[in-house]
């Protein structure tokens, strides 16, 4: 052997550095894989290991082993290794790559893994253009589980679950994943290669390296589909199996480049740098200065406040906001508070309500089934909640007169067209704040400063704050008039 040939032989046969020195998968065979003779995985492993060597990325590489015959890829690759659930490697790879953008994430999947159970994950990872590399080994069969049909099984091909051969009518046509993914805008590089002869293998090695190199350059999603022999399950001698890849499989799955945007692709912009740790409470708004200073008002606490309020009306009447301003004001005044909205189908069908509690001692249940004040902004609310009002309690009703069926002698009822009242000061939509004004007059305990602060906290637009302040004053005066009339 000449020295040049010797060198070539060494280059071709030597063990890539990205492989471990010895393989412990099979204890008795330290330098052999667990793969069957003639299996394509060993060849693909070697070209991938060599690409990792050549690109100098061994320390940065994280290989995701799939479920299938290559589940034990981590026994061979001396890189960071993560083993994933069947079909989920693209999602796992997304989770790794997004948090560790300096790493080189390589997903290694078979055809059952990628094209059947993991069809959603590969489609969406490709569509997002994740900066990962996927090696898709297609042998047209589920091998590890003993030869069942895969989405890529050829028409007419027999498997244990298509004993008479796959038919288009019953199982559908073989799924062309590379062509399917090539319809997406994001992938940078998609090529199908084969292991059918040495020429094909040489092309496959080039494609694998390119797919990894694209990631090193930060270009985005690359996938290489490798048509690969499975002599054991195909029940063929290795050489015949290899030729079957070239002579038969390739007719269904033509080789070639389906996407190549490597020239026009640019590395993605780096994500924003993380802020300093000390900055985080400010960004989240959880610093002391973002929170309300809770006034310690012993006088208020001594009053044994125990307000159970239910606010109800149509969506859009500001029911939830009314409750929120009340709760916020209560908290500002040093009371215990809770605010609980109705949510979901009730909102969609147009009604809305919330439970608000203000108390001088810790609040047990935030649910208000028996309010001492019911704010009913429409008649359906009255119908739903008025019977539950505690004796001695109040109903504030948004209507000129109370329908007779809701009359009760053991509670006080202020019925008024609050929407019209709000209209007189500029906007009928301020009815909720007129009613809140009346409620505050009844409750009588909250300092004006807390109410002002709460309004400014909950209502962001200045034009509304002015209107709402006037609405609160109006509500208070309407309530006072009512009380005076009652007294007279």
């Amino acid at each position: 052997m000449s020295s040049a040939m010797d060198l070539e032989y060494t280059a071709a046969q030597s063990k890539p550095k990205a492989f471990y020195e010895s393989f412990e998968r099979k204890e008795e065979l330290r330098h052999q894989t667990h793969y069957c003779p003639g299996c394509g995985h060993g060849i693909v492993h070697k070209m991938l290991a060599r690409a990792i060597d050549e690109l100098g990325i061994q320390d940065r590489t994280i290989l995701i082993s799939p479920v299938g015959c290559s589940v034990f890829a981590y026994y061979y690759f001396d890189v960071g290794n993560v083993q994933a659930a069947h079909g989920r490697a693209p999602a796992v790879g997304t989770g790794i790559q997004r948090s560790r953008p300096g790493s080189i994430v390589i997903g290694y999947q078979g055809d059952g893994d990628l094209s059947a159970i993991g069809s959603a994950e590969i489609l969406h990872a490709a569509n997002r253009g994740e900066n990962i590399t996927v090696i898709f080994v297609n042998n047209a069969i589920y091998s590890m589980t003993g030869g069942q049909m895969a989405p890529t099984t050829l028409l007419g091909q027999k498997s244990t679950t298509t004993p008479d051969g796959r038919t288009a009518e019953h199982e559908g046509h073989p799924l062309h994943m590379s062509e399917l993914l090539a319809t997406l805008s994001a992938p940078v590089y998609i090529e199908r290669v084969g292991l059918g002869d040495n020429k094909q293998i040489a092309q496959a090695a080039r494609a694998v390296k390119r797919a990894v190199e694209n990631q090193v350059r930060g270009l985005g999603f690359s996938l290489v589909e490798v048509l690969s022999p499975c002599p054991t399950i195909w029940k063929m001698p290795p050489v015949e199996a290899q030729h079957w890849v070239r002579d038969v499989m390739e007719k269904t799955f033509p080789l070639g480049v389906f996407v190549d945007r490597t020239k026009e692709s640019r590395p993605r912009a780096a994500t924003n740098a993380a802020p300093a740790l000390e900055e985080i409470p400010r960004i989240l708004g959880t610093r002391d200065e973002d929170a309300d200073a809770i006034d310690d008002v012993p006088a208020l606490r001594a009053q044994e406040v125990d307000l159970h309020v239910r606010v109800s009306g149509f969506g859009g009447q500001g029911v939830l906001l009314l409750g929120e301003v009340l709760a916020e004001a209560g908290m500002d005044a040093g009371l215990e508070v809770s605010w609980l909205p109705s949510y979901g189908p009730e909102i969609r069908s147009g009604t809305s309500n919330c439970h608000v509690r203000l108390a001088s001692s810790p609040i047990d249940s935030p649910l208000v089934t028996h309010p001492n004040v019911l704010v009913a902004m429409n008649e359906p609310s009255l119908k739903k909640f008025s019977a539950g009002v505690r004796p001695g309690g109040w109903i504030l009703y948004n209507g000129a007169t109370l329908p007779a069926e809701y009359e009760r002698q053991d509670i006080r009822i202020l019925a008024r067209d609050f929407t019209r009242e709000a209209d007189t000061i500029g906007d009928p939509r301020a009815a909720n704040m007129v009613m809140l004004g009346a409620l505050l007059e009844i409750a009588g305990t909250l300092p004006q400063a807390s109410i002002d602060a709460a309004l400014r906290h909950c209502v962001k637009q200045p034009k509304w704050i002015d209107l709402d302040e006037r609405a609160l004053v109006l509500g208070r005066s309407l309530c006072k008039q009512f009380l005076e009339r009652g007294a007279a």
Partner: protein
Amino acid sequence: MRKQLMKGNEAIVKSAILSGCRAFYGYPITPASEITEAAAFYMPKTGGVFLQAESEVAAINMLYGASSAGVRCMTASSGPGISLMQEGISYMAGAELPCVIADITRGGPGLGNIASEQSDYHQVVKGGGHGNYHTIVLAPHSVQEMADLTALAFELADKYRNPVVLLADGFIGQMMEPVEFPKRAVAPRLPHWAVAGTADSRGNLISSIHLGCDELEAHVCNLEAKYRRVERNEPRAEDWYANGAEIVLVGYGIVGRILKAVTAEARASGLNVGLLRPITLYPFPSLHFQRLAARGRVFVVVEMSNGQMVDDVRLALNGVRPVEFLGRAGGNVPTHHEVLALVKKLAKKYCPALEPEELAHV
């Protein structure tokens, strides 16, 4: 004192980021969507990753990836979404990967409805995925606990290298209460076992496969030893007038709040009633129950489900005391009046020593 009025769902996200969480992968579902939305808003601003996944299956596997890479990570979902995540939760438990999952429960089975139920107890507490594993389950009953238990969840997840579920209902998620956060943010740290794409971490492997029978049995035994440590060290419960109570009410989450109101009212009417509120559902606070059995004559479990926690209470008491159950479903909430009526009925049956006038109006 300084506090903020905030929804439980928002408090979870802020607490998570303050606890060093830097990755959130989720899929929208009522009533947990505010968590995902708040994460979308805050994660990118705080140096974290947010991504809306194509499904809950993908979301939990993205957590598998982020956690493998040594990042504190979380997701949020509800009943049907948690069902889809069970595969990934089993893999994470098997591979001993920490993560935090907020389950803001809704009604089931199937599409059920979006109102509050507590019917995810079985699938979360008993480990709804395949294999021999547990998730640690924390059950907040206030917005402050949403924040506090989120911080605890990240600590426990890392301490035991195990998924932790924050099991809350739609009420606690949607409710606003005053909340106080820690002053300082926790710095993210890279665990020694992570696969982070570095020379130091190159030798690491994250995997849940143990092909040999003995090998897998040894792994399961190791997990079991870990769960025994969790059961020894981590049970938590709130004892609310329960010490010495003859009738012990039992409920978690929003039901715990209702039962506090019932307890107050029952005690005011002279009945010796208390509340034991499990805060950890796994590990179940069995010792708390056994201690209260000395004086407690009957334990009354109240749930917004068909009684999924009852078996755990029975096991904890091991037959020494009767266990009664009151449940509502479909989004209906047990009112404190119906619980009180049951308490009075049970007082008659189990506490004959009570004064006749106290029972006269029962």
